[in-house]
């Protein structure tokens, strides 16, 4: 992407608390409402919502705490999710559908089908992930606006 297209027009940050299932999905919902006010295409909002929800739940399930940052660029919307937590030892494995480390308790709540990360990648146009075991994980995904 050319540099001018990377200009951050709007940045909003939301804190996510690990293990806080009660408020799970709130950051994703707030991002959605901002994008709606800005008149972003509903299809883009839907794809980003799917990705955001997965990313937010990952933080809640596996990390101590994290942050979701929404960036609105001239021709794209981008989300960066960083967390402080256990990290992912084998990213390649985690990106495979059906692979999950969810505990039985998490599965009982309907999570842990092993679709989280692949689902984020599938719903975004650009996707990057980096992780350090014992420190945390950083996701960055972007959807282009047309």
């Amino acid at each position, binding site marked *: 992407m050319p540099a001018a297209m990377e200009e951050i*027009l709007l940045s909003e940050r939301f804190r996510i608390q690990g293990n806080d299932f009660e408020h799970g999905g709130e950051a994703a919902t707030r991002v959605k409402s*901002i994008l709606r006010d*800005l*008149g972003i295409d509903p299809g883009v*909002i839907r794809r980003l919502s*799917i990705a955001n929800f997965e990313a937010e739940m990952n933080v809640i399930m596996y990390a101590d705490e994290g942050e979701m940052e929404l960036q609105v660029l001239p021709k794209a919307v981008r989300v960066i999710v960083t967390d402080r937590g256990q990290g992912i030892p084998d990213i390649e494995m985690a990106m495979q559908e059906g692979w999950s480390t969810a505990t039985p308790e998490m599965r009982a709540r309907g999570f842990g089908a092993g679709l989280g990360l692949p689902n984020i990648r599938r719903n975004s146009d650009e996707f990057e992930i980096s992780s350090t075991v014992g420190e945390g994980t950083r996701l960055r995904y972007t959807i282009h606006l047309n």
Partner: protein
Amino acid sequence: MADHGHRIDPDQCIGCIACAKVCPTKAIRVRDDVAGVISELCIDCGACVRACRYNAARPTTSPPSDLKKFKHTVALPSLTLYGQFGKEVDPDQVLRALTEIGFDRTYDISWMCEMIAAATDAYLTECRGPWPKISVTCPAIVRLIQIRYPALLENIVPLETPRELSAKLLRRKLSTQMGLSPEDIGIFFITPCTAIMNSILNPVGLDQSYLDGALSIRDVYAPLFRATREPRPAEAGDGFSPRGLLWAMAGGEIAGMRSANTLTVRGVPDVEYVFDHIEAGKFQSVDFIEAYICPDGCVSGGLTVEGRYAALRNIQEIVKRLSKRAGIPGQGRVQEEKVRSLLREHFFDLEEEIKARRIQPLADDLRRAIALKREQAAILQQLPHKDCAACGAPDCVTLAEDIVRGEAALDDCVFIKIQQLEQRLHPRKEGEDE
């Protein structure tokens, strides 16, 4: 757009903020002591009609005098009506009462409900995703999706409602049978809510409603009540579909369906919770969702008279009794193969695609919209966060939005205004301590 299912009478409105506070889509503002509805945001849920203590927010349902405009009149009652007069009163007594108050004919839609439930079952086995599919029965839900969840329009089951489909077929049949021209026949729904009235005034999924109007249950309640209390010879009363009758209450639509992979959602907060999650890709393992704006489905509609708990119980008792009489408890008699072939012939299809109703963003240009969004956040910081609504907007966030849209001023806020007056009376010099 024409009228909604309700209207605020400026002569009766005293400018209190009761309606603006309860409106789930924040569609009401009080300006110059009169409440006004922002038409494109209104989903016709009727919350304002329930909240108004001054009889200013009123339904726009048809006056009974509208019956005189037609040569032949038909009452097409909401199934909810059957549960309004106590559990001992049979549906056919209610139908007879309707003819006694002036209708030439009545038509029961319980069979059509059972048919459409079967058609929905068939549709679910033949359609493609996205999942889950969502029912179109509650017009307020459809409108909520159009304005707030446009991405979910693809999830809507594109089959006509029992009331419209019944009216369509009935008009055709009666005009042939009786040699009347179709416009001489007046078909009126007896409605439990303002949302259905709005669906007649501003139809979705079809160009023009097949109904000529709707009478509010409230408006016809007293004469009907009296008529149902008069002793009458007993009638067979097996002309009803017990399964179809269940549609009067939340959970009834799916109760008659074969697909067990279903869910009922009711009330605005729960509906929003579920729709937000569907948008986020959740609930995909569910096939079908029936959703209602009202807390118990149609029995709790704003224009009903009987309390919702009593009305629920009445319907359940009536269904039990009719099932027993029909011999096969809870069993419908609609032929599934027939329904499936009708579905393939597009008999049940909506005539038009349901389209999104785009809400005006802060600005069409992205940069401008973001600038306004920032301004809104800055204004919000100055506001007291008490959500008192004295300014006429339901809360501080909405006032801040109205200000950046140029529709309100900062000193509409009474707290800001008091600050400004104090400042004028006791001016403080720069840098001076309090």
